[in-house]
C-alpha cells in the first residue's frame, strides 16, 4: 500500500538578501499574475550546484521529483550537502510548501527534523516531554499513557524534575528522541539528528526505528550521512544530487554508486581518445584499461570478497626484457596498499612486440568499504619509469561496498582499509 506519492515536486528559492529589490520583484510578480501572465521569476532557475556561480537570483532546490513510498518501508535518503535532502523533508513535514507538484499522504506524519523542538530550557524534563510531544502532534492523553515508556527509553528518570537547561547535551538528546520515538504516527521523518548521542544510544535509536517499521508497520524516511546505518536500516534508497533524485531498490548498490560519484574523480575506464593525453613513449601504446568481474562484466563497484579483474589492451612497439606491467592500489586518501608487477611471477607472461590483451586478477583483497584507486604501472624494471603511479600513470577508481560477515557494532565502518578475518578465542 502506498502511503506517500510525490509528483513533480519542485522548490524554487530566492538567493541573496531581502531588501528593496525584492519589493520590486514582488510588485512585478503581482503585476504579471494580475494580468494572467506567468510569474516572470519562475522560469529563470537553474540546476542547483552550490559550487558553481549561477547567473540568476533564483535556484531550484528541487526539480521535478517523483517518488513513492509503501507502507512499512524504510526509505534512506543520502546526498551531498546542499543536494536538497532537507528541502524535501521540509516539504514533507509541511514546514514549507513546494513551488510546484503535489504530495499525497496517507496517515499522520511526524517529523523529527531536529530533536527537542520546543523544549524550553526553564521547564523540567517532565514538562518538556508534554511540550515536545504536543508540538509533534500528540495529545496529552496519548503522552500520559506512554509517559513511563518514554522515561524508561530515555533513561533520565533521576532528572525528570530538573529543568532541561541543566541537562548534558546527551541527556537532552535522549529525552527528545524518546518522545519522538513514541509518537503514534504512521509515518516518521527523521533528519540526521542522531549524530550527537553516544554510541549506545545511537544503537538504541536505530534499533527503535527498525522495530517501528518492521513490527508496527510504520513507514520511516530518514536522511543520514552514516552509510553503515543507511545500509543496515533502509529497504530502499533515494540519492539526491543537485535537486534531482535517483532511486535504488538495493541500498548497498546505491551507496556504492554514490561513493563512486563523490570521490571527486570520474575515471571509470580508459579507452580510445582519453589515452591520448598520457603522452608518448618508445615502448608501449595503451588501448584500453578497465575493470570487470570474473565473468567479464565491466564494473566499478565490487563487494569485498569479489575478485577484481584489471583488463589491459596494449601494443608493444619495442620489446625489452626489463619491460613490465602491473598495478598499484591506493586508498582514497592516497595510502599505497601494494604494488605488483608481472615480472614478480615465477614464469611471467612474455611481452613480445605486437598487441596484447592481459587480465590481472586481484584475489582475496579483503578491502574495507570505501573508494580505491588502481594505478597502472609500466616500467623498465629498476631502470626507467614509463607510467609511474601518482605521477603520470592512468588510474581507475572503484569502490568496495559493505563487507559481509561483520556485526553492526561499528558505528560507520570498521576502522582501516582492510577487513581481514580476525578471530578472538578464549
Amino acid at each position, binding site marked *: 500500500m502506498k502511503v506517500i506519492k510525490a509528483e513533480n515536486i519542485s522548490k524554487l528559492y530566492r538567493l541573496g538578501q*531581502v531588501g528593496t529589490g525584492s519589493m520590486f520583484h514582488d510588485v512585478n510578480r503581482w503585476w504579471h499574475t494580475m494580468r494572467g501572465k506567468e510569474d516572470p521569476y519562475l522560469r529563470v532557475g537553474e540546476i542547483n550546484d552550490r559550487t558553481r556561480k549561477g547567473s540568476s537570483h533564483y535556484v531550484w532546490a528541487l526539480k521535478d521529483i517523483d517518488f513513492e513510498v509503501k507502507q512499512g518501508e524504510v526509505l534512506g535518503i543520502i546526498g551531498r550537502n546542499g543536494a536538497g535532502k532537507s528541502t524535501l523533508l521540509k516539504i514533507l513535514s509541511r514546514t514549507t510548501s513546494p513551488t510546484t507538484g503535489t504530495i499525497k499522504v496517507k496517515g499522520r506524519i511526524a517529523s523529527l527534523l531536529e530533536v527537542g523542538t520546543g523544549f524550553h530550557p526553564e521547564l523540567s524534563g517532565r*514538562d518538556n516531554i508534554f511540550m515536545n510531544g504536543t508540538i509533534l502532534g500528540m495529545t496529552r492523553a496519548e503522552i500520559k499513557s506512554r509517559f513511563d515508556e518514554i522515561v524508561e527509553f530515555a533513561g533520565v528518570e533521576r532528572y525528570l524534575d530538573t529543568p532541561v537547561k541543566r541537562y548534558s547535551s546527551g541527556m537532552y538528546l535522549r529525552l527528545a528522541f524518546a518522545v519522538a520515538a513514541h509518537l503514534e504516527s504512521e509515518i516518521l521523518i527523521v533528519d540526521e539528528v542522531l549524530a550527537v548521542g553516544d554510541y549506545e544510544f545511537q544503537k538504541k535509536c536505530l534499533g527503535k526505528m527498525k522495530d517501528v517499521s518492521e513490527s508496527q508497520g510504520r513507514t520511516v524516511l530518514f536522511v543520514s550521512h552514516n552509510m553503515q546505518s543507511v545500509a543496515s536500516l533502509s529497504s530502499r534508497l533515494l540519492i539526491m544530487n543537485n535537486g534531482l533524485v535517483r532511486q535504488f531498490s538495493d541500498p548497498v548498490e546505491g551507496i556504492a554508486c554514490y561513493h563512486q560519484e563523490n570521490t571527486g574523480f570520474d575515471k571509470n575506464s580508459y579507452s580510445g581518445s582519453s589515452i591520448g593525453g598520457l603522452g608518448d613513449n618508445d615502448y608501449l601504446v595503451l588501448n584500453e584499461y578497465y575493470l570487470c568481474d570474473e565473468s567479464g562484466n565491466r564494473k566499478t563497484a565490487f563487494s569485498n570478497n569479489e575478485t577484481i579483474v584489471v583488463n589491459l589492451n596494449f601494443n608493444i612497439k619495442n620489446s625489452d626484457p626489463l619491460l613490465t606491467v602491473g598495478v598499484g592500489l591506493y586508498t582514497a586518501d592516497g595510502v599505497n596498499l601494494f604494488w605488483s608487477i608481472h615480472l614478480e611471477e615465477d614464469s611471467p607472461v612474455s611481452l613480445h612486440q605486437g598487441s596484447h590483451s592481459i587480465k590481472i586478477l586481484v584475489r582475496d583483497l579483503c578491502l574495507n568499504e570505501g573508494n580505491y584507486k588502481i594505478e597502472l604501472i609500466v616500467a623498465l624494471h629498476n631502470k626507467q619509469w614509463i607510467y609511474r603511479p601518482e605521477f603520470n600513470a592512468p588510474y581507475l577508481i572503484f569502490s568496495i561496498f559493505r563487507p559481509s560477515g561483520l556485526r553492526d557494532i561499528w558505528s560507520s565502518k570498521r576502522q582501516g582499509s582492510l577487513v581481514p578475518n580476525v578471530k578472538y578465542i578464549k
Partner: protein
Amino acid sequence: MDKNQNLNTKNLVNIEEQEIWDLIIKPRTDLFEINLREVWRYRDLMWMFIRRDFAAQYKQTVLGPLWHFIQPLFTTLIFVVVFSRIAEISTDGLPPLIFYLSGITIWNYFSSCLIATSNTFVANAYIFGKVYFPRLVMPLSVVLSNMVKFGIQLLLLVAAMIWYAINGIEIHSGYFLFFIPVIILMMAGMGLGLGIIISSLTTKYRDFTVLVTFGVQLLMYATPVVFPMSAVKSPDLKFWLSINPLTPLVEAFRYALLGAGSFDAMHLIYSGIFILLLLVFGLFLFGKVEKTFMDTV
C-alpha cells in the same frame, strides 16, 4: 471460492489506494483554508504554550508573579501625577487612580496581544521551521495567556475598587457588568486580527516590527485611556476619536465596571463589524503566509 474472495479484497485495496489520501501537500492553497478543526485537535498544544508562558516568564526572579501587579500600578501612579495632577485632565468624576488603572488594564490587554501576536512568525521561526502544527495555535495561545494576565490585573482593579468603597467613595458598577466578557473578546479579536496581519507582513519586511512598537504607543493617545471622551469638547476631534474602533470598547469597559464613560450600542456595533472584517482579512493573509514564510523569514 477462496481465490475469488482474495481477488475481491485485492480490488478493494486497489480502489482504496487510488482514492483515499489523508493529506495533500500542494503549492497554492484555496483562498480560505483555515482548518479550525485542526486547530481544535491541537488544543493540548495551545494549553502547553500557555503554561510555558507562565512557567518560564518569571523563573529566576525574586518578585515572580508580583510583576503582573507592579507594571500597571506604577504606570497608573505616573499617569495620576502627569495627567491628573499636572495637566489636570478630567477623570469623569472617578478617583484618578481607578480611572487610569481601568484604562491601563484594558489597554494593556490589547497592546500585549497585538505586540506578541505581531511577532508570531519571526519569533517562532525556529520552531515553525522544524515541525508542523497549525500556526494559528501560536497567536491564539498568546491571546489566551494574555487573557489570564488580564484577569490577574483585573483583580488589582477590583481590589482598588473595594478599597475605595471601604473609604466611602461610591463606584457604580452598572447592570452592564455582564457585558465585560464581550468587550474582552472584542479586544482580543482586535489584537489578534491586527497582530496576525502585521506578523504576516513582517515575515518579509521587518519595517512593520518597528512600526508596531511606537504605533501602539501613539494609538493609546488616540483612544480614551488617559482622558475620558466627555473631556473632548471639539466636535472635529470627537469625530476622529470615534473613528477609532477601540474608543467605544474602552469607554464601554469603564461604563460597565465603574459607571462612568459611555455605552453607545451603534458605536459598539461599528467596532464589532470592524473587528470581524479585520479577523477575516487577517486569517486570510495568515493562511497564505504560513505555507511559505520559512523561505522568506
